[in-house]
């Protein structure tokens, strides 16, 4: 009965669009994270360190203009005549280092509080002194050169990694809560009972809910990719990004099965959303939605293999950003559909039309 499918889908869609809470938590809230992470952690490789030059330091001042321009990308050099004030500023953390020259020695003053920045400055200064030594020794063409190259596309920025992770989390929230809350609210408000008394078939009812959830997930995808692709954030999708669509469809099924399971246990919408939260939030952390799991303990990595979101995140990263072929997403799609079948079957056995 396709009429029933259309009208039930319409009723669910309107119910979702008019629910400001649902809109906030499935779209706006994750979007805030995307904007926050994407904006804050822009260009992580080229963040400049501020240093102060006390008096005149020859290796800076006598630098060729071309080398100076390169240096400016890494270090921002202020000049100061006052040694004590400069050192005080380093102590307070205003500058990563203060540099002065005494005779042929270049002295770098740094604070132990920010070891990462002072380490960077130290490395940069070391190479500058090295270069100056080579020049003064008459070596203009060095025997060896180091050329560091990133393996990913040059344009790879934080936003590239953040977008699939946060999008995955948003889809998990939308599908899990959508399924759990519909089930519990409709059971509590006796809508399920009312539908059972109408000639609507159960597959039509399930089909409508699945269709609406997939629609919501694809809407999330469009909004997230759209915003992350703004020049300010600078997301660049690789050629096979469209493989994210079947991935998201499969993942929506998997997350919905979790929501249906939560909805089978819960009697009230409050309990349902508590259970869903208890599942989705830890899953998001353990699946690397917010930060990579590279440094996580091995047991965390093992646990994460059981989570559908982990597979969604990895596969989306592969096809949307890392430029992998379309086939790379197939194992993840298989896993997600399998997860949905197993958990969905359990949920079907626990399903109740009525509270009593």
């Amino acid at each position, binding site marked *: 009965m396709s009429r029933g499918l259309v009208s039930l889908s319409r009723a669910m869609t309107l119910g979702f669009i008019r629910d400001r809470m649902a809109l906030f938590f499935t779209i706006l809230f994750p979007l805030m994270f995307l904007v926050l992470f994407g904006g804050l952690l822009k260009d992580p490789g080229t963040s400049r360190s501020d240093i102060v030059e006390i008096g005149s330091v020859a290796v800076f001042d006598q630098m060729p203009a071309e080398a100076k321009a390169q240096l400016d990308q890494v270090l921002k050099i202020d000049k100061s005549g006052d040694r004590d004030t400069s050192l005080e500023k380093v102590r307070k953390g205003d500058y990563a280092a203060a540099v002065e020259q005494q005779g042929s020695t270049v002295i770098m003053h740094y604070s132990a509080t920010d070891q990462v920045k002072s380490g960077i400055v130290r490395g940069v200064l070391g190479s500058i002194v090295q270069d100056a030594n080579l020049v003064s020794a008459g070596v203009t063409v060095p025997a060896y050169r180091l050329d560091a190259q990133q393996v990913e596309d040059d344009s790879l920025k934080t936003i590239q990694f953040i977008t699939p992770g946060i999008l995955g989390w948003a889809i998990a929230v939308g599908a899990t809560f959508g399924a759990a809350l519909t089930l519990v*609210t409709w059971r509590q408000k006796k809508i399920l009972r*009312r539908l059972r*008394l*109408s000639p609507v078939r159960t597959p039509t009812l399930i089909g409508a809910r699945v269709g609406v959830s997939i629609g919501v997930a694809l809407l999330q995808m469009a909004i997230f990719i759209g915003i992350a692709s703004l020049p300010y954030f600078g997301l660049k999708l690789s050629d096979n990004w469209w493989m994210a669509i079947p991935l998201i469809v499969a993942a929506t099924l998997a997350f919905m099965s979790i929501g249906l399971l939560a909805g089978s246990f819960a009697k009230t919408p409050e309990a349902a959303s508590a259970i869903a939260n208890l599942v989705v939030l830890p899953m998001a952390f353990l699946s690397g939605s917010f930060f990579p799991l590279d440094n996580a303990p091995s047991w965390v990595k093992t646990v994460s293999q059981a989570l559908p979101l982990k597979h969604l995140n990895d596969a989306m990263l592969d096809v949307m950003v890392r430029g992998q072929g379309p086939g790379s997403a197939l194992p993840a799609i298989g896993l997600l559909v399998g997860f949905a079948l197993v958990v969905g079957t359990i949920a079907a056995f626990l399903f109740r039309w009525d509270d009593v």
Partner: protein
Amino acid sequence: MTLTIAVHGLHKSYGDVHAVNGASFEVQQGEFFGILGPNGAGKTTTLEILEGLRQADSGEVTVLGVPPWPRNPALLPRIGVQLQATSFFERLTAREQINTFASLYGVGPRRADEMLELVGLSDKADTRTEKLSGGQAQRLSIACALVHGPDLVFLDEPTSGLDPQARRNLWDLLRDINGQGHTVVLTTHYLDEAEILCDRVAIMDHGKILELGPPATLVRRLDAPTRISVESGLISLDDARALVDGATVDGAVADGTDGVEVVDDGVSLTIATRTPAPVLAALADRNAMRGLSVRGATLEDVFLNLTGREFRE
């Protein structure tokens, strides 16, 4: 006449609780049928079995000629159900609500608008159901139950929680619906409602049907005394007693036995008698009829007599 519902020897237990214990009744086509009973009497279970939501343990049930269990998609479009809770989809307007239900039955939006008109909600068509008053929500849920033109309508306590005005409006609506040929089965908490609306009522308790028949017949069968009240002070208590004794043919006295008595509560003097005509004549002779009211027994009295308890608990 054709039978719309036939129930014979119906049993249903939940664990140790025998919710329905051998109920039998029939409902004719076009009838307005009421099921009354205190909470826990088995009304709701009976209704749920008729609707096909539950399976009977034993007994024969046919609705519109077929068994309602297991769920029969061919039967469902022929019945309409208004549930106790107003079960609406969240955040839809009245019109969207009824359109959704209509389309589940393959009924178009024009019919949905007509139903809104019928229940007097045309001006509320674009209001979200959460914002409707109790009476408006009840009327909408009845409209949703009727939108596909069912032969048989189940109404579960349709007027509970409504103010007197809204109840009366709803009664008119229910009478109209029945008048259009829909068979109506109603459960209610209000005996006055059943008395006014129903062609026949079944009084249930402990899972059994105690009495079955037209309300007026049940009341008459009770043979309860008629209560005649006039304003206090028009006639003294002793005079009234003498008057009752004089007017009694079969020698009953106003001593409270057999329901015959005289009571003055300071506001009204009430005479309960089985021979109201001579009493009224005597009162008229003495010009003591100011504030007169004559009340026969009601369904409430029948109920009290049958179950030994107040209707509402």
